[in-house]
């Protein structure tokens, strides 16, 4: 008699083997693979609007002008909107990672070194976007305590600078 725990284990193993098979398929048989996913064009971002969403002064003004319940509602709307921006910035960082990785293998040592540097910084920004996104999710539940304008603004600014200064792109 096979115990339920072994059945759970077997299902888990089956799912993992299936997942690994999918990875092989995506890499060697699927067209485009993960590279194509991140090789999309940059998303144009209205940074002015984004900065407005995370402006501490703007938030303070709303906090003093509105009733607490109304402030929470408005703040949630602002956080939701800011999340879209961070997601777009994360995608742009992904494009930069792919760009840097491709350049890293260039026979020209200078280009390769630049590619390495871009890749590392873009990875850093990508992770930062993820952390910001997660904190924003939390801010949706506690809009008064976890204000994106207070602690996260600097981080948002970092990614927004990145998007604004992408070569050959007008992000803002």
């Amino acid at each position, binding site marked *: 008699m096979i115990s339920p725990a072994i059945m759970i284990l077997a299902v888990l193993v089956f799912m993992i083997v299936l997942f690994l098979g999918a990875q092989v398929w995506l890499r060697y048989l699927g067209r485009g693979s993960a590279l194509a996913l991140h090789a999309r064009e940059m998303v144009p971002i209205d940074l002015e609007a984004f900065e407005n969403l995370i402006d501490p002064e703007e938030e303070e003004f709303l906090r003093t002008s509105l009733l607490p319940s109304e402030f929470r509602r408005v703040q949630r709307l602002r956080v939701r909107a800011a999340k879209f921006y961070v997601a777009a910035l994360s995608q742009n960082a992904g494009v930069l*990672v792919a760009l840097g990785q491709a350049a890293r293998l260039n026979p020209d040592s200078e280009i390769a070194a630049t590619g390495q540097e871009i890749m590392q910084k873009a990875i850093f920004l990508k992770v930062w976007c993820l952390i910001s996104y997660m904190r924003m999710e939390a801010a949706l539940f506690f809009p008064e305590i976890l204000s994106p304008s207070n602690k996260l603004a600097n981080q948002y600014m970092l990614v927004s600078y990145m998007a604004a200064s992408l*070569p050959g792109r007008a992000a803002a």
Partner: protein
Amino acid sequence: MINSVSGNTQAMNPHLTLYRLLWATPHVLLLVVASVMYRRRLHSQFPVFFTYLLVEFLQFSLVFAMYVHWLRVSGWVYTQFDLYGRISGIALHFGVLYELFDFPVKHNPSLRQTTRRALNWISAVLVASASILIFIQYAQSAGHSLLTQYATLEALNVAQCILLVLVFAWHRFLGLHMSTMLFGIALGMGLMSSLDPLAQAWKDSVPNTRIPDYLEMISYNFVVLIWVSAAIAHKASGKVLGSLPAVGLSSLSRDRLLEARQSLDEIERAVAPQ
């Protein structure tokens, strides 16, 4: 991988020959993987995995010598050696997993530290969850108290399976193309970590069956072949990346890259005082 098969003094028969062949072949091939990695200087990129290959081979050599009675030891010594061999194997597996996670951020100390911290937490949660699953399984079997150490090892194996999935997810999230060697190591470790606990659980719940042993050995042969192929084919990863312009990232010109670097430098300066 050490097989906990007791010594057999019977005359050689086809079944036994096949058994020994399936057991010994992948371990010999581990040396092939190690030598190819060394020749291609991959050992410096994946030092923990390289160490794992050598340690695994050494362990096998000793256990095999005990198994065929070239080394005469008591059953207790054999069991203890097997157990500690498994423990060191799992510790090295975790080391390899951390190495795979670290690979994209290894040039960035602060990010590396953050990744490590996150990984420690994730590992702790996974090990705790897997322990519950495995101990439920063992609690139902007779004499489970004797198997606590093995149950712990199984739980660690299950946690490793999930971590392996996260390695792929991590690279995908970052948009990084995994090099052939890295992909091969992750794939092989994933297969090994997922089939090991299943085979072990099968053995524990259905005594006197050799099927799980064969499943384990055949899968390990397959895993080592994946590593051999990955080490040999590693150079090909450059070709894949070479096709990037075709999927949208056109004009990898020096000017564009320098401009990108300048932009990133400005970002860094902008956030430096914080």
